[in-house]
C-alpha cells in the first residue's frame, strides 16, 4: 500500500532564488504532484507606481529584479515609447542592445554556476562565478554599477559607448571565447553532471506550448521562439538572431534540465556574436532624443493611452503594460509580467515523477528570479523538520552516491 505525504519546499529555501512555495506530494522519494504558491515577495510595486511619475518609475522598474533589471527597464520604457510615440536615435538602439546582451551573458553565467552548485559540482560553480566577474567589470565601466545600471531613459540612453568601453567589451568577448568553452566542456561532458540533469524535470514540446512557457525554458523543449527574431526590436532589426534549440546541436530536444543548461550555454556564444556585431555596426549620432528630463516629463504629461512593451529577457519574454492619463503627472496604471510568472506555471508538470532531491534543481532550471534565503519544513506523517542544509545535503549526496557506485557514462538513472 502506498502512502503519499505532502511537503512544502519554500517559501524561503536554498534552492530558490526567489521566495516561492512548492507543495510536493511524495510517494517515497517520487514526486506525484505539485502545487506552487507564489506571493511571498509580492511588494505591490505596480501599486507604488501610481504615485510616481514615469521617470521615477524607470528606477522603480529597475528594482524589480537585480539580475534582469535592464530588461524590466527596457520593457517599461518601450511601453511608454509605444503609447507616446517617442522615437529613439539609432545609436541609442544599438547601445540598448549591447547592454541587453551583456545582461544576458551575465544572467546565463550566473545561472550555470548556480546550477552546478545545486548538484554539488563546486569546482564548476567557482569557475562560473569567476567567469561572471568579467562581464560585471564591463557593466561597471559602462554605468558605474555592477547591477542596476541606470542606463536607459525615454528616447535613448544615458551613457555613451566610449573607445575605452569598446575596447573593454572586445577584450571581454575574446576572454569568454577562450575561457568559456572549458567551463562548458567540464560540465556538459561530465558523466555525473549529465546523469543529474538528463531526463530530469522534463517539459515536453506540447506542454511548453500549452502552458505558454517562454525563453530558454521553451527553447529547451524544442520551440523556435525568440522575440529577437519574431518581432525584432532595437538593433535586432539589423542583427539577425536565430533561436537556439537543442535539436540543432544534439540529436533531439528532450526538454530536460540538461537541455535548459545547453540552451543557456549556447546562448552565451550567440550573445558574444551579437555584441561584436553591435559594436562593429555602432552608428554615429546622438544617443538620446531629448536630454532635458523636464521637457520629457512635460511631453509625457500630455500623452494619453496604453502601451505594451515586450522583449526577450534572459529568462524569457518580459511584458509590461503602461497607461498614462493626459494631464496626470503620474503613471495611471502599470502591469509587469516577468518571465518567471509564465514559466512557473509549468513547474507542476516538470516535477511529476522526479525525486525530491531533484526538486531544487528543477525549480532552478527555469532560472527563477533573485533573492535566496533558506529553510524547509516537513509536515504530516514524516519525522520532524528537514533544514535547508539537510535538503541541500541530500541533493549533493545524490551526486556523490552516483560517483560512489562507480557511475559510468551511458548508464541509465
Amino acid at each position, binding site marked *: 500500500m502506498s502512502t503519499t505525504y505532502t511537503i512544502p519546499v519554500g517559501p524561503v529555501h536554498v534552492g530558490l532564488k526567489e521566495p516561492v512555495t512548492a507543495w510536493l506530494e511524495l510517494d517515497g522519494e517520487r514526486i506525484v504532484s505539485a502545487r506552487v504558491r507564489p*506571493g511571498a515577495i509580492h511588494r505591490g510595486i505596480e501599486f507604488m507606481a501610481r504615485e510616481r511619475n514615469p521617470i521615477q518609475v524607470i528606477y522603480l522598474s529597475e528594482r524589480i529584479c537585480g539580475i534582469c533589471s535592464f530588461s524590466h527597464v527596457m520593457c517599461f520604457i518601450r511601453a511608454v515609447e509605444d503609447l507616446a510615440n517617442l522615437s529613439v536615435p539609432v545609436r541609442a538602439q544599438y547601445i540598448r542592445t549591447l547592454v541587453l546582451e551583456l545582461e544576458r551573458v551575465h544572467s546565463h553565467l550566473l545561472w550555470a554556476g548556480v546550477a552546478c552548485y545545486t548538484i554539488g559540482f563546486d569546482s564548476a560553480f567557482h569557475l562560473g562565478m569567476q567567469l561572471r566577474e568579467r562581464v560585471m567589470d564591463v557593466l561597471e565601466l559602462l554605468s558605474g554599477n555592477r547591477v542596476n545600471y541606470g542606463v536607459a531613459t525615454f528616447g535613448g540612453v544615458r551613457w555613451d559607448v566610449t573607445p575605452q568601453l569598446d575596447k573593454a567589451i572586445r577584450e571581454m568577448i575574446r576572454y569568454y571565447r577562450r575561457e568559456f568553452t572549458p567551463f562548458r566542456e567540464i560540465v556538459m561532458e561530465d558523466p555525473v553532471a549529465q546523469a543529474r540533469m538528463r531526463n530530469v524535470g522534463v517539459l515536453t514540446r*506540447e506542454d511548453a506550448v500549452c502552458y505558454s512557457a517562454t525563453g530558454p525554458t521553451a527553447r529547451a523543449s524544442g520551440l523556435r*521562439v525568440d522575440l529577437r527574431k*519574431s518581432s525584432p526590436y532595437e*538593433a*535586432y532589426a539589423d542583427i539577425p538572431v536565430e533561436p537556439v534549440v537543442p535539436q540543432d546541436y544534439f540529436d533531439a530536444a528532450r526538454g530536460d534540465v540538461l537541455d535548459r543548461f545547453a540552451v543557456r550555454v549556447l546562448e552565451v556564444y550567440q550573445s558574444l556574436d551579437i555584441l561584436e556585431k553591435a559594436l562593429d555596426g555602432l552608428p554615429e549620432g546622438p544617443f538620446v532624443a531629448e536630454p532635458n528630463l523636464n521637457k520629457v516629463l512635460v511631453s509625457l504629461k500630455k500623452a494619453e493611452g496604453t502601451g505594451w512593451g515586450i522583449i526577450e529577457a534572459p529568462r524569457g519574454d518580459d511584458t509590461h*503594460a503602461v497607461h498614462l492619463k493626459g494631464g496626470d503627472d503620474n503613471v495611471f*496604471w502599470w502591469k509587469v509580467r516577468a518571465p518567471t510568472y509564465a514559466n*512557473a506555471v509549468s513547474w507542476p508538470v516538470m516535477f511529476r515523477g522526479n525525486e525530491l532531491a531533484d526538486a531544487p534543481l528543477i525549480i532552478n532550471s527555469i532560472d527563477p528570479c533573485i533573492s535566496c534565503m533558506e529553510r524547509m519544513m516537513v509536515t504530516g506523517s514524516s519525522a520532524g523538520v528537514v533544514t535547508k542544509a539537510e535538503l541541500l545535503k541530500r541533493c549533493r549526496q545524490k551526486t556523490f552516491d552516483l560517483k560512489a557506485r562507480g557511475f559510468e557514462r551511458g548508464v541509465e538513472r
Partner: protein
Amino acid sequence: MTEKTEKPRERRGMSLADRLSVSRFAKTTVDCGVLSDALRTRFGDGIVSLEVREHKGGRADEVQSRDLWVEVTPETFRPFVEELFAYDFVNFHVISGNDGGDDVALNYHFSLFQRERGGRIGVVCTVRVPKSDLSLPSIFDLLPGSEYSERETREMFGVDFAGLPNKALVFLPEDWNEEIKPWRRDAAGPAPELVRELS
C-alpha cells in the same frame, strides 16, 4: 515582415479540439492586415474598436513588428479567443487591467505567429467587464498558462472567471481579507489607512 496573404484555413467543420491542436503551433504566418480584416468580418459589431500599431527600428527605420489592439464586447470575448486559435496556437502573456469607474477593463496580451522573422503579431484584446456583473468566461481550458493571471485578476479586481478550477489566492497573503481588492479605485479598493506611505 512576410507578405504572405494566403487565406486562413477554412474554419467551418473544425472542432475545438482541432483548433487547439498543439501541432498547429506557429505553422502559417498571416499578415496583420489580413488578420484584422478577417476578425472584423467575423465579429462585426462584437468588435468595439481595432487599431494596428507598427514598431519601427534599426538603421533603415522600417516597420519590424505589428500589434493589434482590439476591444471586444464581453459576449464576444470567448469566441474571439477561440477564433484566434484558427490561425495559430495562441501564446498567452498576461492580463493587465484598470478600474474604469463603471467597469473593469481587462487587456489580454497574446502573441501569434512566432516562427518567421518579424512575423509575430501581438494581440491585445480589451474587454470591459461591467461592475454590475463582474464575470468573464475563463480561458483556462484553452490556455492553461493563463491560470496565474486569471487568479491574480480575480484577487486584485474581483472579476470572477467562470470555469477556472482553482480560484485560490495567488499573490496575496493567506490571511488577506478577500473583501479588499487592491487594484480597485472604488469602495472595494484598499482604504487610505491600509496603504503604508513610504518616504
